[in-house]
Structure formats: C-alpha cells, structure tokens
C-alpha cells in the first residue's frame, strides 16, 4: 500500500461519483454522488497526510466533513422545497434558467 494506491483508489471513487453526477437524473442520487466525491477527496487528504507524516490532512478532512454536513442539510432542504414547488426530483425538468 503506497500513497499512489491510495490516490488511485480516491480517484476511482471520485470518478464513480462523477459518473453518478453526470448520468443520473434523480436529484437525490446526484447529491449522493457528490457525497461520494467528497469522500474521495477526504481519502486523498488522509492519504497525503499519512505520506507526509503530519496531521494537517486529517484536520482538512475534519473540516470537509463539517462542510459536507452543512451542504447536505441545505441541499436536501432545497430538494424538498423543489419537490414541493414542482412535484419532481428530475434534474432535467428543473430548467427554468434555460429560457
């Protein structure tokens, strides 16, 4: 297990999340994918921290989790508001800005 392996694993997870964001229309799953991407980044942080031999990476992850919690809270709140307004969670149907 080298740092290269850790970064690659983080990259794989990030890519999975990315594909999820790009290809799914259910906004809940899109949000879920974003969470996966965030976790991938967290993994990369911890991996680099372990490689460098200090704790800064872990502290970054700590903050990242905090921000992620906030993001999920607000994001899900918006999903609820959106569903209440438009009765859909389909991202393709939420395109008012287009016109």
């Amino acid at each position, binding site marked *: 297990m080298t740092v290269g392996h850790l970064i690659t694993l983080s990259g794989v997870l990030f890519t999975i999340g*990315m594909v999820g*964001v*790009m*290809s*799914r*229309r259910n906004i809940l799953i*899109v949000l879920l994918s974003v969470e996966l991407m965030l976790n991938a980044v967290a993994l990369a942080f911890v991996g680099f921290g372990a490689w460098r031999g200090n704790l800064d990476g872990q502290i970054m992850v700590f903050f990242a989790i905090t921000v992620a919690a906030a993001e999920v809270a607000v994001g899900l709140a918006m999903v609820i508001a959106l569903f209440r307004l438009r009765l859909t969670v389909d*991202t*393709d149907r*939420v*395109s*008012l*800005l*287009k*016109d």
Partner: protein
Amino acid sequence: MAFLAWVTLLAPLIAAITLLVRPRLRGSSGGPKLAIFSVFICAATSLVFWLFRSETVTTSFEWMTVGDLTISIGLLVDNLSTLMLLVVGLVGSAIFVFARGYMKGDPSIGRFYAKFALFVFSMLGIVLADNFLMMFIFWELVGASSYLLIGYYFEKPSACDAAKKAFLTNRVADFGFLLGILMIWSLTGSFEFAKIADAVKDGDVSGPQWQLTLAGILIFVGAMGKSAQVPFHVWLPDAMEGPTPVSALMHAATMVAAGVFMIIRAFSCFDLGVGATALGGASMFIATTGGVTAFLAATIALVQRDIKKVLAYSTLSQLGYMVMALGAGAYSIAMFHLTTHAFFKGLLFLCAGSVIHGCHHEQDMFKMGGLRKKMPATFWCFTIGMFALMGLAPLAGFFSKDLIIDSLHQKHLVGLQIGATVTAALTALYMTRAWLLTFFGEYRGHATPHESPPVMTRPLKFLAFVSAVIGLVFYYGHGQDYLSAWHGKFAGPLHMDPTIAVVSTVAGVVGFLIALALYKKSHRGGEKIVARFPRLHSLLVEKYYIDDSYHWLVQNVQQVIARGCRWFEEAIVVGVLVGWPVGVTRWTGDRLRRMQSGRLAFYASCFVGGVTILILFLYTVAH
C-alpha cells in the same frame, strides 16, 4: 444725455415687461396707457436730442469679454440716429394712440400693447446701436417681435403662417447679415462703426477688394430681409394679416425702414467721400435690386383688391426707391425718403385702418366706395397722404422721390432712372385707383360705414400735417445739414434738377389721369384692360409666381431633403450602423444560448471535460 439715451431705449421695454408680469394691468385701460406713455417718452427724448443735435452722445458697457474679444452694448446718438428716433417716436406715438381706438374691445389688448412696446424697444435698439453685433441683436429682436405681432390673431391659421413666413424669410436674410458682419470683423478688426470707419479711412483693411465687396453684399442681404427687397419681399404683403396699427408701424413706417437705416449706418463707414465707397461693386448690385423691387411691387399693386395689400406693395416699391438711392451712394437722400415715407405711409395705413374699422373689418376695396361723405376726416387725410406718396409738389414725397431720381441721374444709371420714373407713374396709377375705389362712387358693401372716433382721427390729422410740411422743412430748412452731418461725409446741400422734377411730376400726373379715366365712373373700369391682357393680369395677380416657387422649393426640396435625412437616420444610422453590431451579437448569443440546455448533467460533463483537458494539458504539453 447718456442717461437720456438709456431712458429712450429702456422705457418701452419696461412697459412691455410690466405688462407681461402684471396680468391684471393687461385687462384694464391702464396697460395701453402705460405703453403709450412709454412711447411718448421716446418721442420727447428724441425731441430733446434733436434740440441738442450738435452733440454726439456715446455710451457703452461691456457685454461680454472673452480672450481679446470684447463685445459691448453701446448707444450712439448722432444726427442720423436722432432723425430715426424722431421718426420712430413721432410715428410710433401717433400709431400707439390710434391703436387704442382700433383695438378697442379686443379682450387681449394688453398683450397687444406689450408686444407693441417690445417692438419699439427692439427698433430703438437698432437705431441706437453703436456696433454691428448690437445691431444684429436688436435686428433679430425686431424679427421676433414682428413674428409675435403678425401672429397676433393666433387663432387664424393664415396669420400664423404669415408670421412664420416673415420670421423665416428674415432669418434667411440674417444668415447673410451675420456672415457679412463676421467678414467685416475680420477685415477691419472691429464691430464698432466708429472704429470701422477709422480703419477704412486709414486704409487699414486687411484683405482684397473682393472680400470687402462680398461683405458689403452680404450685409445688404440682411437689409433685403427687413426691407423686403426682391427676392425676400414675400413676407411683407402676407404680414398684413396682423392688426392694421401693426402694419402701419412695422410694415410701413419703421421696421422695414430698418434695413435702409442699417445700410446707411453701415455703409457710411465705408464712404470715402462724395459718392465713392470702399465697397466697390456692391453698390451696383444694391441699386439694381432696389430698381427691380420698386418696379415689380408697383406692378403687382395695380391688381390688388385688398386696400392693405395695395399699401403693402406700395411700401415695397418705395423701399425699392430708397435702396436705389443707397446704390447710388446718396445715403442722405435715402434717409430723407425714409423719413417722409414713414410719415405718409404711416398716415395711409392708419387711414386704411380707419376705413377698415369704419366698414366693420372689410378690407376688399370693391366692397367699399363712396366713403368720402361718410368718413370726411379720413378721406382728407388719405388724400394728403396719397398725394405725398405720388410726389405732388410741395408735399413730402415730391422732394424725396425726385431727389432719388436725380441721384440716379448723377450716377448715370440711366436704366434705373427710367425705371424709377415709370414706377412713379405706376405709383400714381395704383394709388389713385385705390383712392377712387374706396372713397368715390356708390357704397358697395353691406355694413353701415361710420367715421372713426377722435382717438383715431387725431393721429391721422397729426400725421397728415407732418406729411404735408416735412418735405418743405427738410428741403429748405435745417434738413440739409442735418442729413449731411454724420461723420462729415454726406457733404453737399440737397439740390434738385428742375428738369427731372418736371419729368417725374408729369409721370405722376399721367398715372393719376389714367386712373381717373378708368375708375372715375365705375369701379369696373379696369375689367376692359384685364380682358385684353389676361395673361399679364394673372401674372400680376399671382405675384410673378414667386410665392409659388418658394412654396414649391419648401415642399419639394427642403422637405425632401429633410425626409431623406430622416430616412438615412432610420435606415443607415439606426438600421446599419447600430443594427449590424446588434445583429451579430444577437446571432452569436442565439447560438451560444443553445448550449445552456438547463440540464445539470450536461453542465457537469462540460465541467469534467474541462478539468480533464486541463490536466492532460498540464501534464503533456506544459511538461
């Protein structure tokens, strides 16, 4: 004396402003009285100036100074302006008084007097100006007050059109005037008459002769506007749409004379001695213009039906005489004729006003007749004015008109001399025609004519008296040196060649007799001649088609150009210059808009694609 000069100038202005800002005064009889009083002040002060006429009064203040250029507003009271002041003051007083009777019952008489006083102020400004720019300023003001007065009956479309026409014709002419002033400024380095005269005297004129001549012609163009010379004459007959006192004061006695006065004032600066002028060929142009105007107007006057129109064309014709004299370099004689003409033409117009008033605003002479018995005072005054105009000795016109013909003779302008003599005959012809149609025969109208009240006839009598004696006074009295004193240039006494006097008197008598033969028995006497020369008649009735050609020019040239510009504005400036960038932007935006599909997945893919390309770039190309 300087204070008195300012009083003269400002008294009518104060009256006008008071009337404007105190609406209550306008309704009462106080308003007219105030205006009349202010004109009386002018008349009184001008008499004072006349008593102390050996003294030249100058006073000025700095109007504006920018860089080395100083424009001042200054008053110059010398013999020339004193005489003109007298004319404006006396004729103005008579007409102001007359107007109280004529305009009686008009609900907005106060407004009328405010404009009237404003006009007198502007006119006095021209008379008293000591430099070209100030003269131009008041010149324009006269144009504007004329606009206001002609358009006094603003609910009549014809009056509005006439007012607009007068203003615009004058504006076009003023275009030349201002250019001329600028040219003279650059040639002599000053706007002030005295300094210009000094520069000319010292030969300190920078520029070739043709520029001076051109400047002279351009200034004369300005005078052509106000003095209604061909081809700028078209406004004057139309201006008869204004109330008759307005026609009398402005379009007969003073405003139209302003052009002549201005030329005398301006050109005397360029006078190099007896008859010679620094302006070169400009004189010839001036004399010819005057001759053409005099003759054309007199012929048109022959066929007019409206009594005011006859007098209007007669005014044109007489102005032509004055301008001919100017062209011949006889400035003092032109001024003489201006003076006499102001009095007898003012008189004639007021008589016409009295007749119109008596006939309940009927102006067509063919619907008058026999008024001799019903309006005796008006009749006699008209008769005196008419004979003065025809040049019957010893009335005023005799001296001044014959002196003009004499000056043409001295300059060997034979063609003009003959034209002037023929015009004298025509003058007698159309005036006698008007006289006979109005006062003799049977009454042909429907109203009951009556003599005007004393407030109107008294001014008539006053003017009739002056018209009768002024020629004699001038010719034999102080008039000679009085006319000739300005700048010491118009030397030489007024002297008349008896032969010429006889010839022109004979011409007048011939005209008088022809008219008598035609119209003594019946007002239809002219119809035989009309039947014989129908085309000539229609040419005269249509005023040589000059108005029509102007109309055509305005409608078909000016409006087409204006519409073309508007089309250019809308099609090229807005359509192409603005439209092209707008089109490109819109097209590009339209294409790019489609990328904003609104699909989250697409945006994310773009983002990822961008990041991928960036990474690949960084680690392949950049490494």
